[in-house]
C-alpha cells in the first residue's frame, strides 16, 4: 500500500468526518463553472436554476450560517464573478445544511453553536448578529479564531467556530471555484510527469518573488 497517496489519503480521512446522501438540491451551486478545469460530461456540472430551501436549519439559522461562512471565506471582491466567489456563492451553506441532514453527529454542535453566536451578539450589542456592523462581527469572532485573543469562558464558542471553519473549508475547497481559486491543478492529464521546473536550484533558494 505504499504510495497510496498519503495526501489524498489524509484528505479523504478528513472529509470522511462529514458525510451525506444523494440528490442534494444545492448541487447546482457547487458545480457552477469557472475556467481552467477540464470539462466534464457529468450532468452535475450544468447550472440549474432555482433557489435553495434549507433542509435541516430553519431560515434564521440558515441566514446566520450563510453569513458566517462568507465571513470565514469571503469573495475576493464585489464583482460577483464566480472566479472570485466566497463561501456563499460557492454553495457552502447548502453543503453544510446537507451534511447536517445526513450526519447526526454534527447536528447538536451546529444548532447550539449558532445559538451561542446569537446569544453572544445580544450580550455584546443587544442586536442579532446579522444586524451588526462588520467591525462588531469581527470583534465577536476574533476571540474564537485567534488563540492570542481568546477569553476564558468562551470555550463553547471557540469549539463551534473551529467546527464551522472546518466545514466551510471543506465545502469551499471541494467546490469548483474553490479549487480554481486555490490554483489546484485538479484533474488534468499530462503527457509526461510534470516535475519541478527549477531542478538546477535544488535547494530552491533562488525562486521568483512570491505571489502576494
Amino acid at each position: 500500500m505504499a504510495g497510496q497517496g498519503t495526501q489524498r489519503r489524509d484528505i479523504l480521512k478528513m472529509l470522511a468526518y462529514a458525510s451525506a446522501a444523494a440528490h442534494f438540491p444545492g448541487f447546482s451551486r457547487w458545480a457552477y463553472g469557472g475556467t481552467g478545469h477540464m470539462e466534464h460530461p457529468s450532468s452535475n456540472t450544468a447550472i440549474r436554476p432555482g433557489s435553495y430551501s434549507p433542509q435541516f436549519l430553519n431560515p434564521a439559522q440558515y441566514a446566520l450560517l450563510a453569513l458566517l461562512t462568507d465571513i470565514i471565506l469571503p469573495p475576493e471582491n464585489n464583482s460577483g464573478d464566480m472566479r472570485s466567489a466566497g463561501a456563499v456563492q460557492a454553495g457552502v451553506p447548502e453543503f453544510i445544511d446537507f451534511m447536517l441532514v445526513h450526519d447526526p453527529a454534527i447536528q447538536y454542535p451546529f444548532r447550539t453553536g449558532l445559538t451561542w453566536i446569537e446569544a453572544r451578539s445580544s450580550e455584546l450589542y443587544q442586536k442579532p448578529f446579522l444586524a451588526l456592523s462588520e467591525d462588531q462581527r469581527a470583534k465577536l469572532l476574533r476571540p474564537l479564531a485567534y488563540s492570542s485573543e481568546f477569553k476564558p469562558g468562551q470555550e463553547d464558542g471557540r469549539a463551534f467556530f473551529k467546527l464551522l471553519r472546518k466545514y466551510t473549508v471543506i465545502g469551499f475547497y471541494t467546490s469548483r471555484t474553490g479549487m480554481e481559486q486555490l490554483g489546484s491543478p485538479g484533474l488534468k492529464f499530462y503527457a509526461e510527469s510534470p516535475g519541478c521546473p527549477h531542478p538546477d536550484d535544488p535547494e530552491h533558494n533562488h525562486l521568483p518573488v512570491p505571489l502576494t
Partner: protein
Amino acid sequence: MSKSDYDVIVVGTGAGGGMAIKCLCDAGLKVCALDAGRRLDPTKDFRHHRQPYDMPFRGMGDPKTRAQSYGYMDNEYVAGVWEHEIGYSSAAGTDWQWPRCFNVGGKTNFWGRSSARMGDIDFKAATLDGYDVDWPVSYAEIDPYYSRVENLIGVASTVQNRPSNPDGHYLPPINLRCFDHILASSATRLGIPYLPDRIAQLTVPHNGRPACHYCGNCTSGCDVGAFFSTPWVFLPSSEKTGNLELRQHALAKNILVDADGQAKGVLYVDRITHQEVEVHARVVVVAASCVESAHILLNSTSPHWPTGIANSSGQLGRNLCDHLYGNAGKGYLPQLFGQPIYPDSVSSSTIVWMPRWQNLDNPHQERFIRGYSVYPEGGSVDFPVEYDQIEGFGLEYKHEIKRRHPAPVHFTLQAPSLRSEKNYVDIDPEKRDVYGIPMVRVHFEWDENALLMWEHAKQSCEAIIRGAKGEYLGAGDAPETPGYSLHETGTARMGNDRDKFVTNRFGQTHDVHNLYLCDASVFPYCTDKTTTLSILAFTMRTCDYMIENFRTGVHQRV
C-alpha cells in the same frame, strides 16, 4: 484419484492469483479461477476522473457505509467495491483493520504500486542479526524472477546501487517535484537516501499498454491499465488461451480432500444463489491473500487434517507480520510559500522513497534490528490539507491558505513487525459470517522493535524538515491501526523443515503435495519493502516448479 474437471483451481485473482492464472494458462493447463467478488467495470466502478463536486458526497461516500468504511481507499470514488458483507473477528486487545477487496483483480486494482526488490539483507536477516529464521531462498535464485516480473509489468525507477535494495530493470522514473529537491538536499546532508521509488506505473508505453496520463487518482483505479493490475495485465491474455474459466461471486469455503487427505478441489459459496458448489481439480492454488488464505486452510478440517489442511506443523495461521504505518513527521517548506501551484499529486503516489538506511553495515548499530523505509509526499494537492495550522478567518485567512498550498510535506513510515508468538490468526470458535462460515480471528499487537523504528523515524524526519529550513509541525500521535498497510505476511511460512513450516521453498505445502500457496502467506516475515512485487516473483517461481511437476508426472493432467 477422483475425477477432476480442471488441472488447477486458483483461489483468488489478485497479484498472486493473477500471476498463477497467467503462468498456468500459458503453460496449457486448464484453470478454474475463483473470486469472491465480481469483475469490475472501469467505466462504472472507477470514478477517478471525477472532481469532488461531481459526486453526491464529494468523494467522501455515503454516511451509511462511511461508518463501516475501511479508511481512505474505501470511498466514493470506488463505492461498492470494498468487501463489507463478510465479517472477521479480532481477539480481545487486538485492534485490526482488514480492508479487503473481494473483486476480480483484488487489491491490484487500487494498490500503491511501490515495487522494490527484496535482497539477501532481507532473506538472510536471521544470519545477520540472529533473530528468527532466514528465507529458504537466496537472492541469486529469485533475481531472474524479479527481472521477468519487471519486464512484464513495467516498473519506473533508477539504478541506485544500494546494498539493501537490489536494482532491477526500470523504465524512466517519474520526475521529482520542488519539495522533493529541497528535502533530498537536506536528507543527503544527513546521510539519508532520498530517491525515486520503484513504481509499477508506466512512464512510457510498455507491452501494448499506454503510458500514464498522470490524472493523479491511481488508488481509485485506472481506466487505461497504465499501472499494473491483474485485470489489465494478466487476465485478457489468459482468457485468450482458452484455458481459463473465471467464476465470480465464488467465496471459497474450504479445500476438499480425497481419501488420502490430498486436495481434490474447493467448496465455495455462490454469493448470488447462496448455494454451495464443489469444483474439482488435480492441483489447488490458494492465493486469497495472507489472512484469507490461512482462513480457508484452517476451515478445511477433515479426519486427515483435524486442525486445518496441511497443518501438521501447527504453524498454519501463526507468525503474522505486518507493516507499521504512521505519519513520521510533517511540516512546511517556507521556500515554496506563495510560489505558483504545480501538479504535485499527479500519481497519487509516493513518487519518491527513503529506502532503508539503518543497520546496513552493522546489524546491531541501532537499538532495533532490521530497518524501515519512509515515503515522503507533499506539495500542492487537491485540498489544503493543513488549513487548520492557520488561525483566523476572512480574506487574510483565505490568502494564507493559498500562499501555503505549495509547501506542505509529509512522511509515511513503513516499518516491518518482527515475527512473534503473539501475532497469529485462528478460527473464531463462535462467530460465523453471513454464509455460515466460521470467521477468522486476528491476534495482533506491535512489537517493541517496530515501535523503536517508529521513534527513530520520527527523529529522522524532523531532522530532514528542519535541515531543509522547514517549519516542523510534529508527527502522528500513534501508528496506524495494524492491518492498515495491507501488507500482511506469514501464516503459512515457507521453509525446509516440515515440522516448523507449512510450505516448502516453492510454496507447496509439506503435507499436501498438490496444494500450493501463492501470496504473502508464505513469506517468513515482512521487510522494509512492499509485498506485491515479491508475491509476483515468488508466484512465478512456484508456477515454474508446479508446471515442471505436471511435466514429469508428479501431478497428472485431467
